[in-house]
């Protein structure tokens, strides 16, 4: 549940995480280029590494408060881990390029695009998905507000909007309509529910409820 995480996050943390992400990415890219057979025998031929029968990698991860020990293909993104391996289909695949926000989840309390995150990089991380934000019989205040303000039509971008909205408030970036519009602009909605989404977020922020 959302309570596991601090209500406010320092903006600096965001940058740190980004640096960490970059460092990890570089490390991974380095591994792929290294001549040593890190991915197992079939990976001896460097050319074959990106797509050979990559050896599964062990991953320990917490998803919605449940610890999971997994062995997975290192190419699997966090998004595909959730959707295709763990049957948590509430997190949506919209573009797979980090351009639409539909796949937004919380990793250690930060909003993260799960399509741009490799699952194996989430070792010991705490992931919260829409399934962990609230339940049908116990909706999160933002989920209630989205229903009240009709902040969606087709519903496909909705989980990502909600996960992003929770962090937007926690980050202290939901102070006004204009601020919400700016800090939610990474979450696209083709049905055009934007004004209703903004109204829902503003109402929850102003109510002072814990998100």
């Amino acid at each position: 549940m959302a309570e596991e995480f601090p209500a406010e996050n320092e903006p600096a943390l965001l940058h740190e995480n980004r640096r960490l992400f970059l460092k990890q990415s570089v490390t991974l890219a380095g591994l792929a280029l290294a001549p040593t057979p890190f991915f197992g025998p079939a990976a001896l031929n460097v050319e074959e590494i990106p797509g050979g029968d990559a050896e599964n990698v062990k991953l320990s991860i917490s998803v919605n408060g449940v610890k999971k020990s997994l062995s997975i293909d290192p190419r699997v993104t966090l998004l595909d881990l959730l959707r295709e391996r763990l049957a948590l289909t509430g997190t949506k695949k919209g573009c797979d390029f980090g351009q639409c926000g539909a796949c937004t989840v919380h990793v250690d309390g930060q909003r993260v695009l799960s399509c741009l995150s490799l699952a194996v990089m989430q070792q010991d991380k705490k992931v919260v998905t829409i399934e962990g934000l609230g339940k049908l019989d116990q909706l999160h205040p933002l989920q209630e507000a989205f229903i009240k303000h009709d902040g969606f039509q087709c519903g496909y971008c909705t989980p990502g909007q909600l996960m992003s909205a929770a962090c937007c408030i926690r980050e202290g970036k939901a102070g006004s309509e204009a601020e919400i519009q700016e800090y939610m602009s990474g979450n696209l909605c083709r049905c055009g529910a934007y004004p209703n989404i903004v109204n829902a977020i503003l109402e929850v922020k102003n109510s002072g409820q814990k998100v």
Partner: protein
Amino acid sequence: MINPKNIHASEPDASLDRVDGPVKVTGTAKYSAEYQFGQLTYAVLVTSSIAKGKIKSINASKAEKAPGVLTIIHHLNSPGIPGYPVVKQPAERAPLGTAFRVFYDELIYFNGQPVAMVVAETFEQAVHAASLVQVVYEVEEHQTDFEANISKAEMAPSVRRSKNSPFQDYDRGTTDAWKNAEVKISATYTIPTQHHQPLEPHAIIAVWEAADKLTVYDKNQGVKSAQGNLAQTFKLPRENVKVISKFIGGAFGSGIRVWPHTVAAVLAAKKLNRPVKLVLGRELMFTSVGYRPYTVQKIEMGATKAGMLIAITHEGIGQTSQYEEHLERTILASRAMYACPNVSTRYRLLSLDVNTPTWMRGPGDATGMFALESAVDEMAFALNMDPLEMRLKNHADSDPERNLPWSAKSLKACYLLGAEKFGWKNRALAPRSMKSNGWLVGYGMASSLYGFHRHPSKAKAIMLADGSVVVQSATMDIGPGTGTAMSRIAAKVLGVNPRKVRFEMGDSSLPDAPGQNGSSTIPSVGSAVHVVCESLRNKLVTLAEGMPGTSPSYANILKYHNLSQLEATEESKSGPERDQYSMYSFGCHFVEVHVKPLTGEVHVKKVVTCADVGKIINEKTARSQSIGGVVGGIGMALMEASVMDHRYGRYITSDLASYHIPVHADIPQIEVHYIDKPDMLVNPIGSKGLGEIAIVGVAAAVANAVFHATGKRVRELPITLEKLI
């Protein structure tokens, strides 16, 4: 006889929250790619990298050896689609009017055409193996550049063959009468190719339950038409094909047809005898599911000095593929919109080496009304007249095209209400004369219209023992809130709380209904739901006769008669009224933009939209639909353009970072108003369609506001900043 009104409590007046709200906000609503199957396999398409030519060879041996690969299908080894004709040797180009056939022969018709499909145990394995498939082409010269080929446009062959086609050349009054008018304008308007890009990519899971029994979980806008299409394609009895589409993550027209990728997934599932999941990558969403076609329109218009329209000529040229025609209403609005004695329209198609376009929200009219409503604004400027006054002066009190009365029309009321709510009276007449904080301020407006569509629809209503109601129809919800509106209609007729109604749809085994398109769902299926609930109510009233007490509940009626449930099925369709009245939805939009003089940056600051669609069924969801249309129109006006590199005939805008759609920061609060007056001549619920008029005209209103702000008339969408500096 019991008065049915006494049977139960009456419905609440307040708008209903979306009935599927809870499942959508909790992520528990299941979209097409989200059904769970053991033995599920993953398919990835390999697509052509040339726009025209032939496949010389396909080398899949490396891919076949990649781990997890189960099969690779292409035209050389395809098990064949039973509904396709036998391949000719040598292969011949399909004649115009042939739907694209997947893995059929070696011919390439467009860049991005599926040429092979890899199926593997996991998505990652399939993606990798697809990258190993080597295709060698024999390249032929292609033509994808609309402007360079525009002289080749011609009347569509199907129109030439059909004298009654609405796309025949049309002349009312005197041709070219505009030339002799006191005031005249002539202008050309261009709309680039634009893509639907729903947030959910098109997806399918194909499952063969038996050798002759198919179930697909597919993203589409019509389960019944998809069922019919797949039955025909795979030569199966219709009842052996089941199409499930419970939740659709937006479509806007992209799901009206059954596209080649769907057929490919079904073919692979058949070959493997395992469920196959295919989700189109975002880049394939640009070449696989249609688009709003590139269109060039020329409008010539003449008026008296007093502002009375004398003549309009409207010519439109739309893009299509080399294998199919795609006709849109582009020029039709000019015949019906204004009381104008002399109107001529011409409509032509230009075939290029591209995939076939399809209907996109407000098909044809969103395109045509951009031109017509921009031109009216240009004429008002030429006359030094308020553009709203110009429209009021030329209001068509009856349909000038069909010479019939309107079934209902409150467009004047829309204009006046919108103008008042917007503050139109504060608009200075001269362009570039209003400013705020260093930004240029512009007010623009435009009208909207869309024809009324009502198709035969069936619905079934079941009263359960506990007094709750299940209503079923094979209609769809791509987003507007079909289930919510239908629950409301059923609840009103039966006099129950809408929360006691469950509406079931998106399943081809339910009673016949049209797909969700052309703003036809509420007019068609809403009528069927109304009629079937009346029928069920009448049955219940009959059963209540002779029962003790004056006002038994539905549950008691069933209990008294020892019934576990009671059901009714009805069909509803149009009658002779279609020939007696002209039926349209109408509306108008008022837009305020701010433009930065130095950079040409355009911000939409305020929008007021008014609609006249007869009775509003559920205002809360209707408002969202209207807002969504305006947002789509702002995208169309200011940012959306699919740009092709004509050297390769390939889109260079092939993701959401380069194909720009509106984001939160682009959209202000949007005010929505309805006239909400039932039009009882169109159907028993008095309600017309809303989805299309919500977007039709918006692009013109934005362009007109930009002109008012800057004095620059941009006739080529989108209005990006380089066009303003």
